[in-house]
């Protein structure tokens, strides 16, 4: 309780000035600034003529300004947009004002429309966040993972081609420590067919990657960070359809659209996709036994058990801009996937008949109402029910070889024949509220409930009803206080999260030979702070900190009573995450430069792993290791008119074993203490260049050439300090080049893209030298009607 008390008193002290200042409210005015495309404009300077009072529009393009009551003139200014002025009445209950600013570009050729996008504005937030503007990449043939893998601090290690498993690392932390969301809702709610390498880029407006410190609206136990995919929140009608085809018999279809019935105001929204790929790319130098020569030989062969397909449909119906709701939507989604599994954890393990498939339905309601209680209070609510069934098939008693041949085996391919089934029901609800104490102070209270009921069984031996479900209820109560000082140049965010977890499952009791129901409840406090200071309009500093958790799961604490014994003293994995950063953006006539640089520290403790108990051949989960990670990352962006775009980034990540004592002792210092953790990329970078020209071949067209290079530096597979140095295996440096050409006509209505990935056909691999595809070609046609 002690940390919470301290935090609470700090909040009170910090709130005091705002509460006092809120007493002397004068007249005010509020509104929204849009560009000529009706898109909200962020960071517009709104000042009162003849005074020094002013604000900037927020992430939704909105502003609110207090001043003495009466008629005053507001000046709206932004580089690249024509200045606007309005005479407005400041009073106690103002009406919302809408200001449309025209592009200066409309009268000048080749001038960059330099409206500060939401992405740049997000990067200047107090949180350490990478944001990727997906609108610019809507014509790309890449998937989300491929695009995000080019962001600083992100490393996606993928097992193979389309639909393969991946490990998404944010500043060196990965696995269960990184959580994925779509519009603030866990991506898992949509089923396993929807993930970062199957979601079409057209569906996303942008992707926000929170590194180490996660804001309360993404309340969950995201110890290492969170990725939030933001879909279109636009209220206009649109249709966005695309078809991609390419190497390895890959086909991707995507259809998104929205229609508003003007008479009833009902909005209908549809998002859907279908993916298919044989993933039969060539594996080089694979070890294959030649029975006639009685020895193993090395040959190039094609993958033969890696077909993947997935499908997703989501329909939403709702209304907007009613007196009782800014937005109310109900929706339903269905997803399914079917994938073959080609390899195990390394490519020497080959499967020929292992596959997975599954389906999920999700039903949801979302509601938003802003400006309640004299325009001070906003409320946002989401509730969803997801029902999913995931299946795994491993029934062939065979051992496959890379040439597709097989021999009979004493075991199934994964070890024991199974038709594994996982039935999962999940309820997720999130209530987000915001109360503005004044112009510069606001508080948020959120409540998240995540209930999962899970039945896992092997259909070869048991049915769903033979198995008592495992139940897990996570609740997170979070509180956030944000203060802005010096005309929003200095922003501080203080937050605290209380994690409450209820677990229930059955465990086999070998004495009574019966299953016994066990349960537990635990609570932990997390807390943090984020701060940003804009020293000038172009240059700012930021820092953030959070104590975060990855909560326990039932199997970890209770075991199963058979092969995994219980450990009631297990603690959740936890981490002290620190970020420091700066940004600088400057326009020099037609040139725009932006530099973001950051440093980070992750002091992670109590990582949970299984430990064998040799005495009775069982396992137990224990808090075993601590890892200390530090790193730096930098990203450089350059833009020349609307012609040249250059992005370059580099990330250096250093992680060392911070487990001081070996074998749970309190006096034997481990040999690997403070030694660099093996098998982790430590240096990687990307360069993307695009050169485009408008109206080259015909009016309202644009042609763009793109080039990208990704470099992942070599790294040690094992501890670099130990063993004969000639024996230490390394994963060699990988340099991959991509090129592409995009052509859009009729103001982006018809779009054609041709990309070649890994143009040098370099040997590329991930996790434990799992080979990835060589050179590949993709073509995409996209139709966009707005």
């Amino acid at each position, binding site marked *: 309780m002690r940390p919470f008390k301290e935090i609470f008193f700090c909040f009170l002290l910090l709130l005091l000035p705002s509460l006092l200042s809120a007493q002397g409210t004068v007249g005010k005015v509020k509104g929204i600034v849009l560009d000529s495309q009706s898109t909200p404009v962020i960071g517009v300077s709104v000042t009162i003529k003849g005074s020094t009072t002013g604000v900037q529009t927020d992430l939704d393009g909105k502003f609110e300004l207090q001043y003495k009551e009466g008629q005053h003139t507001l000046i709206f200014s932004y580089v690249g947009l024509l200045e606007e002025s309005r005479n407005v009445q400041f009073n106690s209950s103002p009406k919302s004002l809408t200001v449309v600013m025209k592009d200066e570009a409309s009268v000048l050729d080749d001038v960059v429309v330099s409206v500060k996008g939401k992405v740049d504005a997000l990067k200047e937030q107090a949180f350490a966040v990478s944001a990727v503007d997906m609108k610019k990449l809507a014509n790309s043939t890449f998937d989300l993972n491929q695009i995000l893998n080019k962001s600083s601090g992100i490393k996606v290690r993928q097992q193979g081609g389309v639909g393969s498993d991946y490990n998404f690392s944010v500043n060196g932390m990965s696995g269960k420590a990184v959580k994925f969301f779509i519009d603030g809702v866990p991506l898992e709610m949509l089923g396993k067919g929807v993930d970062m390498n199957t979601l079409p880029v057209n569906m996303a407006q942008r992707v926000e990657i929170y590194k180490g410190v996660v804001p309360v609206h993404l309340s969950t136990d995201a110890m290492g960070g969170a990725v939030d995919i933001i879909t279109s929140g636009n209220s206009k009608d649109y249709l966005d359809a695309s078809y991609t085809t390419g190497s390895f018999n890959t086909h991707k279809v995507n259809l998104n659209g929205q229609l508003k019935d003007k008479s009833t105001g009902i909005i209908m929204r549809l998002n859907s996709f279908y993916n298919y790929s044989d993933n039969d790319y060539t594996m080089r130098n694979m070890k294959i*036994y030649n029975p006639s020569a009685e020895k193993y030989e090395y040959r190039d062969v094609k993958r033969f058990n890696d077909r993947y397909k997935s499908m997703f449909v989501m329909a939403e119906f709702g209304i907007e801009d009613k007196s009782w709701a800014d937005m109310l939507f109900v929706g339903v989604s269905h997803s399914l996937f079917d994938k073959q599994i080609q390899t195990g954890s390394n490519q020497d393990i080959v499967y020929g008949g292992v596959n997975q498939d599954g389906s999920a339905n999700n039903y949801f309601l979302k509601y938003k109402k802003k400006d309640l209680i004299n325009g001070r209070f906003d409320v946002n609510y989401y509730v969803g029910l997801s029902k999913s069934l995931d299946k795994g098939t491993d029934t062939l008693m065979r051992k496959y070889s890379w040439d597709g041949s097989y021999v009979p085996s*004493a075991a199934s391919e994964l070890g024991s*024949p199974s038709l594994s089934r996982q039935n999962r029901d999940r309820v997720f609800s999130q209530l987000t509220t915001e109360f503005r104490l004044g112009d510069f102070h606001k508080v948020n209270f959120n409540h998240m409930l995540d209930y999962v009921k899970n039945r896992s069984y092997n259909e070869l031996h048991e049915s769903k009803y033979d198995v008592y479900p495992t139940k897990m209820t996570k609740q997170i109560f979070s509180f956030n206080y944000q203060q802005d000082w010096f005309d929003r140049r200095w922003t501080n965010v203080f937050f605290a999260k209380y994690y409450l977890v209820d677990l229930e499952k059955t465990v086999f009791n070998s004495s009574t030979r019966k299953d016994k129901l066990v349960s537990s409840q635990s609570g932990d406090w997390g807390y943090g702070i984020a701060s940003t200071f804009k020293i000038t309009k172009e240059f700012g500093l930021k820092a953030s900190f959070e104590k975060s958790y990855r909560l326990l799961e039932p199997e970890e604490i209770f075991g199963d009573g058979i092969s995994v014994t219980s450990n009631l003293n297990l603690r959740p994995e936890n981490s002290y995450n620190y970020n420091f950063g700066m940004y600088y953006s400057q326009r020099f006539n037609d040139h725009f430069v932006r530099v973001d640089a950051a440093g980070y520290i992750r002091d992670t403790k109590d990582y949970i792993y299984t430990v064998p108990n040799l005495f009775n051949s069982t396992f137990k989960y224990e808090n075993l290791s601590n890892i200390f990670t530090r790193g730096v990352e930098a990203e*450089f962006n350059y833009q020349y008119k609307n012609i040249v775009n250059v992005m370059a980034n580099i990330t250096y990540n250093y992680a060392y*074993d911070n487990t001081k004592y070996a074998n749970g002792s309190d006096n*034997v*210092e481990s040999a690997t203490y403070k030694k660099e953790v093996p098998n982790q990329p430590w240096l990687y970078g990307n360069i993307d260049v695009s050169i485009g020209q408008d109206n080259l071949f015909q009016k309202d067209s644009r042609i763009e050439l793109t080039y990208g290079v990704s470099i992942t530096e070599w790294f040690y597979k094992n501890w670099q300090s130990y063993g004969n140095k000639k024996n230490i295996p390394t994963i060699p440096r990988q340099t991959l080049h991509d090129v592409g050409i995009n052509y859009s006509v009729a103001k982006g209505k018809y779009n054609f893209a041709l990309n070649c990935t890994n143009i040098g056909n370099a040997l590329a691999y991930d996790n434990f030298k799992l080979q990835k595809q060589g050179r590949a070609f993709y073509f995409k046609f996209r139709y966009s009607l707005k």
Partner: protein
Amino acid sequence: MKLKSYSITSILLLLLTVVGCSKEPSQGGGFEGEETYKYFLLSALGSWPNTVHYITATNDVTQGEMNLNREGDEINSKGTYSYIVKNGYIYNYKTDQRVFKKMKYTKDKLVTELEIPFSYINDISAFTWVDDNTLLVFGDTSDVERIRYTVFDVRTLKVIKQGDVTGLEPFPQGYEYYSIGSAAYIDGVVYLQYSFRSAKWVYPSFYNFATISYNDFKVIKSEPDNRSSGASSGSPYFRTSFIKDNNSFYYSCFTRTNSENNDIYLFRIIAGQETIDRSYEINLTKTLGGLKPETAMDYIGDNKMIISYRDPAKGSSYNARYAIIDLETKRVVRVLTELPLDEPYELGFFTQDQKVYMAINSAEEGNYVWIYDLKTDKVTKGMTLPDKISGFARFDKFYDK
């Protein structure tokens, strides 16, 4: 444009500089090592999941140092470390790849000499040597419950014969799986301890013991014994049985579930007999004063065995001792208190010429080989070993003599 050029050049230079500075380590140079070795050590380094196992070797364990900072080869990528060792070679069944390997440690590197596809058994649950060139392994299959055998000529890794063991006792009500214990070959007869278990690893209140004809792998005699339940582990990871003077086979019984409530026993069969020696048993737990033995025991000579056990009174880790038990008097004749307390991993000792060589992973400064000489009853300190590690997974000899 000038600024553009500068900016692009700067960032490219930055990337190239950092990348250029990081030179990939060359595979040349390094510690040379010997052509052949007599002894080897497997050390586990690092906390999970970054635990890496290294092999180092020597020709003299009585002096010198094994230093992981200059020597050793990692073994995880080359196989499991359930090593069967004979005449300078390591034999290993890499089950995830279904490959049986013959490896040699030479010039400080683990080299694969021969390998064949092998998928006839699930894993090696028990093994024994028929002669210096003939290896017999037992395992099960994961579809139909049966016990299979394979006999290898280890010179070529050719399979001499393989099949199902026939004539085992039928499954009692409620038990559907075999649990294979230890095996021994003496003079044309194979001795195999086994048990039954349920899917939830519950054992009946007895175990079984079979004598099997090596010629056709038909059971000569199989009998239940209700003095204990479970089965010893015949896997190459452990040593929970031993052959004494080529005239008797001693084996123990361990269970997985409810193991806290079961004492561990040692039983035996005399070579040439078809049935077990029911007049003989040692309650190892009671003999050790109520302490549970580890899955590490072996015969030294002169009717004496060595066994490792943990003593919780000494702490939750680094609490293991070695004791010498007389197989005739069934009493502890010696506790090796001269040795520092040990944190056992899997099998950190071997016996040779009535001596025991122990790699002790101690909480004290420095790890060493400790040598117990049965003839003199003296303990001496030998080679310096890597310290501050997770444990010694294996310390063994490459040759019997």
